[in-house]
């Protein structure tokens, strides 16, 4: 049992080391990129949609993506 705990601790340390700061930044950058792409897609759809119902939905989605982007930048 004790040995298992020791191995777990070791694994945790290795994992932290492996992740490193650069990977943390890298994954956030990738996420922000995904969100930016999505925001652009929604914006493009919004520019071409005239249906009021669809526009309302797209605007909500856009606000959500913007909020997520903002939040990711604070991390």
């Amino acid at each position: 049992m004790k040995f298992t705990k020791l191995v777990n601790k070791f694994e945790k340390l290795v994992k932290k080391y492996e992740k490193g700061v650069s990977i943390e930044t890298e994954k956030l950058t990738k996420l922000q990129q995904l969100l930016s792409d999505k925001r652009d897609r929604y914006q493009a759809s919004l520019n071409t949609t005239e249906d009021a119902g669809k526009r309302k939905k797209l605007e909500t989605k856009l606000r959500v993506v913007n909020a997520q982007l903002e939040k990711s930048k604070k991390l």
Partner: protein
Amino acid sequence: MLKRILLPSILIILSYGFWVSPDFKEIAAGVSIFLFGMLFLEEGFKAFTGGMLEKLLQKTTDKTWKSLLFGVVSTSIMQSSSLVSVITISFISAGLVSLVAGIGIIFGANIGTTTGAWLVAAFGLKVKISAYAMPMLVFGIVLSFQKSRYLKGAGAVLAGLGFLFLGIHYMKEGFEAFKDSFDLASLAVGGYPGLFLFAAIGAAATVVMQSSHATLVLILTALAASQITYENGLALAIGANVGTTITAIIGSLSANVQGKRLAGAHLIFNVVTGVIAIAFISQFIWAVDIVSGKVGIAADNYTMKLAVFHTLFNLTGVLVMVPLIQRLADLLVKSLPEKSKDLAEPLYLNDAAIEFPETVLKALKMEVWNLFDSAFEIMAHGINLHRTEILTSPDLEKTIDNDREVHEFDMDELYESKVKVLYSAIVHFISNSQAHMSSDFSEEMFRLRKAAGEIVECVKHIKHLRKNATRYMLSDNEHIRDEYNRLRYQIAMILREIYRLRGDKDIDHAIAILEMDELKAEIQSAHAGLDVRVTGILRDDRITPTMATSLLNDFNYVDETSRHLLDTAQALLVSHTDLVAEAAQEVVLDEDEIEKASAA
């Protein structure tokens, strides 16, 4: 293996039969049309559930004597106990009457059918309801195109009856070829063996001709021609009574287990009555003579005496069996049990997985998805939709607006057997594996347990929603119906989206997790819209205050279910190996942020 070869074997046998015998083809087509009629009939009666017919049937069949009377009167009018039996089977399958009431109706039908013997004996005629088959079909189909639920239902009932008669007609036509092979004189045997033999012949003849009345005419002709003795004639009548149950048995093939139980009751009643009549044939002959003497029937007027006999032995059967109705019902429930709902078993949790933290988490996550799948099905049926409808309908909103089929099932039982069992297994597995886990993994396990708990909560909420959702889905008030359909749509749409995001390999998990926030915001906007709409339609007296409060209460269930489902999906889509998805989890918006984003 047997199941796999059963269907092809049946198809091959049928094809061979069609090839070698046109009569067989006609009989098989008759049976198929008959069963098709049964389905129509059942659907038709379902349209009246929750309304007038249910109340009327409940009031007219709530006591044994009432259901007996119902059977007597309806069979006397329709002149066919088989038809009353199959209609009762469809009543029972649609949940309109109880098994005991259904058995009462069947017993009554057996007395009612004796009026036919009197008609045949006195006037040599019988009401030929089958002549109405074609008009019934035409009117039925015309009505089934109408918008009103009740007209549609009435149309399905009429068309169902039309198909039943058409089916019986084809069966009769098909069997016509065998009719002439009955040479009764050549079979004359004395004593009890003769009685049993002629009873069997009577049953076979009725199966062939699909009418006990027709058998009765055959008996009278044979009696008049002295082809058979009076006793043999009585045995034939007993057999005809047993043979008439075959229509009900065929009818029950497409019915649920309650319908099958009723057909069983019909068969048991007629067989028991037949056995009693044969066992006490001398006493019956004596009683017939006494009654005939009292009412002035001549000793050699066998036609009328046969009618007296038919009435007497059916009355005796009812008198003997009525005190045993409840026992008969219990026996049938015991011998024809509902298909037992197998308890769900965890698919991924096993002791081998416990040793390694990564495998524990993987097994747990897969098991929670398994729980989600079970819950998905129950929730779908809970809002009266099929799982496939939710997953494949090209226009889900339209499907929900048009689909008014009520899914009859025991939600409590399914909750116990499919959801609670899995949830318990998950909780047990977590408590067993916690000792092997580091704090990081424990945190992840806690998240998964929370997700499983939320799935369970969702099923409970849908259980609360189901009653009103079903009632108002069938309502003629389009405003309340539309609002409840919106609630049904919200649940269905979320289930569908989760399924899509989970299964789509092209969608990044990080994006899938964050897309749930968009759905949450959409729901939040819908909430604001609902408040405005409900206030408006209540002010304009389009819905009652009771409807409004039900709607607002139920919306809370739907709202909470939606959030739980989306939170669960977000928790399940996170992966330790997908670091971007893990980062996405940190970007997921909280309630305030969602509210802010959803505000226009």
